[in-house]
């Protein structure tokens, strides 16, 4: 008779220097169950999963998998042999290899003559099964895929059936770049996977998704668990309460009063027009030209000649932190003031005292969780790194702010603060262009452009700005 609990963790502690990331966490995962793990940025979710998957070692506490206690020699290889697979928040595919080759990397059991063919079949089958209509070739180089497609591949790779066993899959914010349709496909697959006896730990900031996919929900806060209960006993409000957030549901779709100011457009070209003081949303399925358009606006603002005319300087808030945003060797404050170098230059040199002061202000405004803004940027959790990128853009004082799905991995409470700041910035006359994969966020926009296949399909505002209209324009008419 096998133990019913697949994973049991008790009293797990972990500190990074002075920061206590985990302060005695207990967690049980039953066989054939999906456990939803929610909490603030920096609550310790990712750290806990890193301990469980053998990436880092806990300072104290006990962990057992399949009834077998783990000792100090536990590492990622041991985790793999115990059937633990992980999809990390930060994507871990090799961009220069194909989809099939990436499968081979994480599953060495695919070998011998014709390994390429079998890898191709395994990953293609898995993709077809999990995400029908994904449109990803097994021979595509990962670097050529959009971030959403990469995330899909990474998830499919973790669930692939190969020789090694698969008992538990840890999904750390798997849907942060996925559109709703794909996210729903994943939730459906997770349900069928646990119905077949597998176990899943799901971390997500999308509460609806957690409620739908999980059997049990664990709420974490400040490095410990604060609530554990069956998913059916939770609803959105209770989750938010337990996380310690105040969710203010004030604005509705189309409810934002336009702050558009009587001034000439700052961005124009084709169907696209943006006036000072506006918040403009880019919607549609992910990877349909929204990011490309933002980059083109940015390039035009720097003087590149393309089809857009942009009359004011622009700043860019990257959503793909690792490739587009973070300077990994620098401190948090350096990462913030890099966009303000011109403004901060006094005479010949940069005024570092002022730069550090401003960074401290941003730490307060956006509650960036760190003991010292001079710490390396990578010492922050993903969501807090994202806050630093926001601070970088807001501090640059440019009249146009371009945001490329910037809320990826940011917790609910901080999101509310950022929405508030964005709306204030618009009132001051800045123009904001905001691409988001979370339909809810379009509530905060004056007008929304819906993209499909690289083109703008519709411009919605006022009463027309509804979820139904966005969805119907996102899909081909035959599908809708």
């Amino acid at each position, binding site marked *: 008779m096998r133990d019913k609990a697949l994973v049991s963790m008790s009293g797990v502690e972990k500190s990074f220097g002075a920061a206590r990331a985990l302060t005695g966490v207990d967690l049980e995962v039953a066989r054939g169950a999906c456990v939803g793990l929610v909490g603030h940025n920096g609550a310790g979710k990712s750290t806990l999963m890193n301990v469980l998957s053998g990436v880092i070692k806990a300072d104290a506490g006990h962990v057992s998998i399949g009834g077998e206690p783990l000792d100090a020699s536990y590492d990622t290889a041991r985790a793999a042999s115990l059937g633990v697979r992980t999809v990390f928040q930060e994507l871990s595919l090799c961009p220069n290899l194909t989809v099939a080759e990436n499968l081979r990397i994480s599953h060495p059991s695919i070998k011998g003559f014709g390994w390429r063919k079998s890898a191709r079949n395994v990953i293609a089958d898995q993709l077809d099964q999990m995400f029908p209509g994904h449109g990803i070739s097994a021979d595509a180089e990962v670097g050529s895929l959009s971030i959403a497609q990469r995330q899909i591949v990474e998830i499919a790779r973790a669930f692939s059936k190969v020789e090694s066993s698969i008992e538990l899959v840890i999904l750390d914010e798997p849907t942060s770049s996925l559109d709703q349709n794909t996210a729903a496909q994943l939730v459906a697959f997770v349900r069928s996977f646990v119905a077949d006896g597998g176990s899943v730990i799901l971390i997500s900031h999308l509460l609806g998704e957690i409620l739908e996919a999980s059997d049990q929900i664990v709420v974490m806060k400040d490095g410990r668990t604060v609530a554990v209960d069956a998913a059916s006993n939770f609803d959105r409000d209770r989750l938010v309460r337990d996380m310690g957030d105040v969710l203010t549901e004030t604005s509705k779709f189309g409810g934002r009063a336009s702050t558009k100011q009587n001034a000439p457009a700052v961005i124009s070209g084709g169907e696209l027009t943006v006036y000072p003081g506006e918040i403009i949303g880019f919607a549609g399925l992910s990877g349909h030209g929204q990011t490309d358009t933002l980059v083109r606006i940015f390039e035009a603002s720097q003087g590149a000649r393309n089809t857009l005319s942009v009359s004011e300087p622009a700043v860019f808030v990257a959503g793909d932190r690792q490739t587009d945003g973070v*300077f*990994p*060797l*620098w401190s948090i404050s350096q990462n913030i003031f890099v966009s303000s170098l011109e403004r901060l230059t006094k005479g010949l*040199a*940069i005024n570092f005292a002022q730069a550090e002061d401003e960074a401290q202000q941003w730490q307060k405004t956006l509650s960036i969780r760190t003991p010292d803004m001079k710490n390396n940027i990578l010492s922050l959790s993903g969501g807090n790194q994202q806050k630093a990128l926001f601070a970088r853009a807001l501090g640059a004082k440019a009249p146009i702010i371009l945001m490329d799905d910037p809320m990826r991995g940011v917790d609910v409470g901080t999101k509310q603060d950022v929405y508030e700041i964005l709306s204030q910035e618009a009132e001051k006359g800045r123009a904001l262009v905001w691409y988001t994969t979370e339909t809810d966020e379009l509530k905060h926009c004056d007008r929304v452009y819906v993209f499909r296949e690289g083109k703008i399909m519709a411009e919605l505002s006022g009463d027309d700005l509804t979820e139904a209209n966005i969805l119907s324009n996102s899909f081909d008419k035959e599908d809708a």
Partner: protein
Amino acid sequence: MTALIQKPWIWAWIGAVSMWLIITIVTDIGAGAEVMSAAASFGTFFVIVAIGQMFVITLGPGNVDLSIPACMTLSATLAMKFMNGDPSLLLPGLLISLGVGLVIGTLNFLLILFLRIPPIIATLSASFLYQSTAIWSNRGLRVKPPELLGDFAVAKVFGVPFLTLAALVLTVAMAFLLHRTRFGLSVLSIGQNQKAAKLAGVRVERVRFVTYVMCAVLAAICGFFLAGFSGGAALNMGEQYLLMSIAVVVIGGTSVAGGFANLTGLWGASLFMFLLVSMLNTFGLSAGFRLIFTGAIIVAVIVISGRKT
């Protein structure tokens, strides 16, 4: 002490000091003082080109300037030929040298930007062009410098070569440029993540342009004074500066991957490289063995300094 040991430039200095101690112990203190003075003179020329190379390498993977030796040769040849030993033409001669640096730096950058040739290929192939121009202009003859330039290049203030002092001032100015100015931080940001730098508003191509031009201008100036120092412009005068400029940068603790640099290490590494060769000479080793040993030590330094990150 622990803070000191973690400095990226410390190993270069430890190396330089140990080399000097070995030489002094094996010979005597008089020879030790002499070799130190020579190290300061020759090391100065290494440092001048290495500063430019350091900025280029800091731009990130793939960025390196291999045209330094050809640039030095062409700058020195054209300037010496123009002055033709006349000390009154010293200033115009220096301007010609600077002009050569500007043109070469610009050309290098245009090849990289518009023809999209990787810098390593662009600067290496353009080298042939520059070197050939130097040969064509003077058919490989050694051109003597004006006496005044020769005197200046070996002049000493309180026993320290004047050029060394000037290079120290240059180093401080460049450290300021790297760590305290918009340009320096832009270079460092590009080296860490070029795409992020572009999206953060850094004018990537403008900064790269200035960096490549600066590297070429420093090489040109170095060629000018080296010709004065060593009694004239010769076709092979820049030969050892290709490997040396890169070795000094890397041993000095600058990251080969880009985004992280320091100038303190350049001096330590320059002295180390000169003293290392001197030490091997002191032991009377053959040229071949000397090269093997030098190579092995460079590899070892890179491995050790790469370990800590």
